[in-house]
């Protein structure tokens, strides 16, 4: 195999694994929101939903690693290893690749904290996990801007589908934040609910607190 062909193979591999990573990441974000909202996937117990969220994220990281390493290894374009983690220092497409580095860094933080989540303070884990809402859009912009792949054809359709799914889930999540009773008003709200005759049995489930 000539050098150019090998390089092209690596380059294609990077683009392909990039697309797969994006799709997996989209699924992970949606699943994370489903867990947060105590939603159910038909037929699956709750621990399976969290398990799926975690396992898919590990797969996403795997594909992401291949995506990054093949991009570095390939000589068709020059992407140093440093440029994959330090944003905006690449000689090839510094801006778009820089965004990729940003989202990779954020993902690394989310990943590491999640691996040790039962050993670090709850608040610290939560704070870092919120970065997911930042890393996803950055990853999407990186994907669309880095190569023309996603800008037309069925890949564009796929990208739009993923984006729509995440956006819809995010709106669902946002609604919970907006409509949730602020914590210092929970008791007032619970007393009102009880007085309003809803004391006689189980309230509608699925709202988290209060019930």
């Amino acid at each position: 195999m000539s050098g150019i062909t090998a390089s092209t193979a690596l380059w294609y591999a990077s683009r392909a694994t990039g697309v797969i990573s994006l799709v997996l990441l989209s699924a992970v974000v949606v699943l994370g929101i489903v867990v947060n909202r105590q939603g159910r996937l038909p037929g699956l117990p709750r621990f399976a939903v969290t398990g799926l969220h975690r396992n898919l994220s590990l797969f996403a990281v795997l594909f992401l690693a291949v995506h990054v390493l093949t991009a570095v290894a390939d000589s068709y374009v020059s992407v140093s290893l440093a440029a994959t983690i330090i944003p905006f220092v690449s000689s090839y497409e510094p801006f778009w690749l820089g965004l990729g580095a940003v989202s990779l860094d954020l993902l690394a933080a989310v990943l590491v904290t999640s691996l040790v989540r039962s050993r670090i303070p709850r608040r610290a884990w939560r704070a870092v996990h919120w970065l997911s809402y930042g890393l996803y859009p950055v990853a999407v912009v990186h994907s669309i801007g880095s190569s023309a792949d996603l800008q037309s054809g069925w890949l564009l359709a796929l990208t739009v589908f993923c984006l729509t799914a995440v956006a819809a889930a995010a709106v669902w999540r946002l609604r919970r934040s907006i409509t949730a009773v602020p914590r210092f008003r929970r008791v007032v709200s619970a007393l009102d609910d009880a007085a309003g005759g809803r004391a006689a049995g189980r309230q509608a489930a699925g709202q988290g607190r209060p019930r």
Partner: protein
Amino acid sequence: MNQQLRVNPIACTGHGLCAELLPEWASLDEWGYPIISAEPIPPRLRKAARRAVTDCPALALLLTDGR
């Protein structure tokens, strides 16, 4: 080594994974919050208990080293 599975009731928002992972040790009350036995965890359930601690979305479970 006696370990007790305890729930932090402030962190708990009633996801209910603990009751799914440890049905013979934890159950949910009518409001969705867990009722967990205060006895030391039997050795055969330790692995599931550790999983529940790691998997709880609210990080509301802990295994304490017993007295």
